[in-house]
């Protein structure tokens, strides 16, 4: 995973900052601000100079290990109920893999095990080469998670939450400020930056959680549980575009969704689950090849999970 010093900072990123944010960045970088009147362009120059002097943003861009997500022989039992059975799944950098399946198929359980919230009964889960059971902290440092039902600290403002996440993931304040601005603009959260999270709508809350992940430098290993659900068309379009960009930049994304149209558009491979078991996997072409009666992902899905209703 990328270390903070490996994230490339360009002048365009810094110039996107609002004046008060630029001033804060200057203070973080300990740039002397003794002048009575400070020109924005001068401050930008000083900030970039300081970045260059410190070497921030230099060095090779980090790459994920291949596979970035490695799930082997995963089984999860809740008492006598088997939620996930014998799941093998790899996600390589530069790939979006979709887990699709009906309710109760084990998709969310798989993502919760992948993110270290719950432990597998059997099998191993590795994130960027780190075993989630024995090297949980290292593995968790690499992964970002968006749950199906987003919720967050209601008494924090959006800005406070994003900076909190940056600190939890050990992102230096100067980089966090720049990335926060980039993604706040992307998800149109500027007006909500100083709003308490408890007052946000579901769609806005989901965007805030996304910024909380993207405040870390790329590339990412991401576990998204219904990421598009609840977003308005513009937010959904932005997120899809971002996911494609992240994929192209070398991130690995495992996404669970019911929205088969979105899955077809984004995912390069699919894992179709039903009652805890994998009933189909592969690219759309391979799945269509295997299921001759199906014409699209929806029909493949229906065919593998109980038959196409006639």
């Amino acid at each position, binding site marked *: 995973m990328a270390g903070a010093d490996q994230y490339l900072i360009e002048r365009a990123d810094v110039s996107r900052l609002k004046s008060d944010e630029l001033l804060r960045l200057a203070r973080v970088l300990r740039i002397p601000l003794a002048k009575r009147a400070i020109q924005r362009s001068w401050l930008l120059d000083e900030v970039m100079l300081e970045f260059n002097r410190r070497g921030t943003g230099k060095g090779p861009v980090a790459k994920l290990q291949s596979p970035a997500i490695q799930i082997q022989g995963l089984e999860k039992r809740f008492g006598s109920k088997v939620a996930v059975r014998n799941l093998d799944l790899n996600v390589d950098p530069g790939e979006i893999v979709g887990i699709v399946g009906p309710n109760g198929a084990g998709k969310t359980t798989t993502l919760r095990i992948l993110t270290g919230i*719950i*432990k597998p009964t059997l099998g191993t889960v590795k994130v960027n080469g780190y075993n989630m059971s024995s090297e949980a*902290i290292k593995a968790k440092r690499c992964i970002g998670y968006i749950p199906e039902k*987003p919720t967050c*600290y209601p*008494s*924090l403002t959006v800005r406070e939450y994003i900076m909190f996440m940056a600190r939890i993931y050990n992102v230096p304040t100067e980089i966090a400020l720049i990335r926060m601005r980039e993604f706040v603009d992307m998800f149109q959260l500027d007006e909500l930056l100083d709003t*308490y999270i408890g007052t946000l709508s579901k769609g806005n809350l989901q965007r805030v959680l996304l910024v909380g992940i993207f405040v870390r430098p790329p590339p990412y290993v991401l576990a998204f549980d219904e990421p598009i659900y609840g977003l308005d068309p513009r937010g959904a379009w932005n997120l899809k575009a971002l996911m494609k960009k992240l994929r192209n930049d070398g991130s690995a994304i495992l996404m669970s969704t019911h929205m088969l149209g979105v899955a077809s558009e984004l995912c390069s491979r699919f894992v179709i689950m039903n009652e805890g078991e994998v009933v189909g996997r592969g690219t759309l072409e391979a799945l269509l090849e295997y299921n001759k009666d199906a014409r699209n992902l929806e029909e493949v899905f229906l065919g593998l999970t109980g038959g196409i209703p006639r």
Partner: protein
Amino acid sequence: MNPLKSSMYVMFKNETRMLYNQFKQTVRTPSMLLFYGITLFGIFFVSTVVSSMLALTPLIAETASLLESTIDRSTLFAAFAFLSATSVIGGYFGSGIASGLTVIQEIVLLPAPVLPYKVFLSSYLRRIVRKTVFALIGLIVILPLLTDASLLYYSTSLMIVCLIIFLETNYFLGAVSSYIRFVVERRTRSRWRYVVPFFLGVLFLLPALPEFTSAFTFAYLVPSNAFAFLFTEMTGLFSLDIGFLIGFVLQVIVFAIAVLLTANLCSYDYYELFSIVKGRETTEGNFSRIIRGEVDFSETRFQDPMVWIMLKDFYSRLRTPMQIWKYVYAVVGTITVLYLNLVHPAWFRPIQVPHDLAFAIVPAFLLMMILLVQMSSVTSMLSFVDEKENVYLLKASPFSSGDIVLAKFLLSLFEVGIAVIPACGFLVYILRIEGYLALLALAAPMTILFTAIGVAIGAYVPVLTNDPRTLPVPLAFSYPVIDLSLGALMIFIVTILAGNQGVLIALPLYTIGFTLIFLWFGAKALNTYK
């Protein structure tokens, strides 16, 4: 700075910031500010009035001598040990530290690179700061009473701090006990494992034996003994004249050990346990199926939506073990108090009130009755909170707000009623006073009124917060204040009109009037949900 070390600081800072933001939100929200203001100044005013009307110093002095003449030192130590034993046994069957986790932490912190003990310690910091602030505010508002009772402010403050430490230590003992179950159940499935909690309970009861407590021994390291010792030394009751400072130091040491031990036991297993506990909760109960039309009521003999809501509440509550125990308590309790009042067994006699305190027995009876009815009616406050997110579904249902509130009120009244009967029956037996039947008759209007207050307060939860699952602290605090005030006013009216026919009109008018007002408030709250 070590990144893992700094994350502890970041999380502490985050918790503190959230507390500060909550304070800011309260101060900037006029309705919340007004609510806090009325509650706090109300209590301050009531305590000022009470202290100006009553001289508490003699009562406190009498209580001390009464305690010394009716109980002995070992009973006092046993009482505190019983609290610890209860925590340990209760904790064994609970989910330990996992019970302190929240859904927000599950989403934000459990997948984050943060060690479990840091999640525990940071949220514990918030808990302890909140408790301390509430205790401090509580002390300030009852300052007139403390002054009147000649109780030294700093001594009382220290006693409350020590009480909090003692209760928190018990909480940690429960958490450790839960961990023991975790270990035991991993190693054996033998039925003998059910003996473990009782063994642990006895382990905390034994050090309270007089052999260990009659003189200062190592047994004072046990939290209950340390607190009991501190209590005796500070109040002078059964004092060994050693000084309370040793007790305080012992308490702090044991508390620190308990916190660190619990933090050390924190592991990812607790995340698992939390998820399992949360998984058992269903936010969508049968009622949502009713709303969606999946349950066919066409064949029910009840045609009234109010009855449907009551039945839905009754059966969904019945699924929780607590509710079953409540009904068991109601049946066993009622039979027991009937037996006591009819047979007057020699092995359990009523309290013989000392002659010096005879003047206080009727007020004590009335006060205890108000408190018992109020405690029994707390469940009415949860009638809307128990709906969780379904409360919005309920609100969106094609039933009138009045029907919904009335349905909640009637079922709550039934539940409160069955809880009040044994409590009042026991009170009548234990404090046998003349004319108790007339006084006891007040329990019925009180039950009706307090239930309506509880339902109305519960209905306001989704109005004041975005989380319909959690009762906000100010609302919860306001309930006993309103109950005590209106209960006292009811008794005052009855006292004024005693011997006058007017009481037969005034009491029902007062009860029905206030009940309807609070139910109207409840319906109004339902219509103003965010």
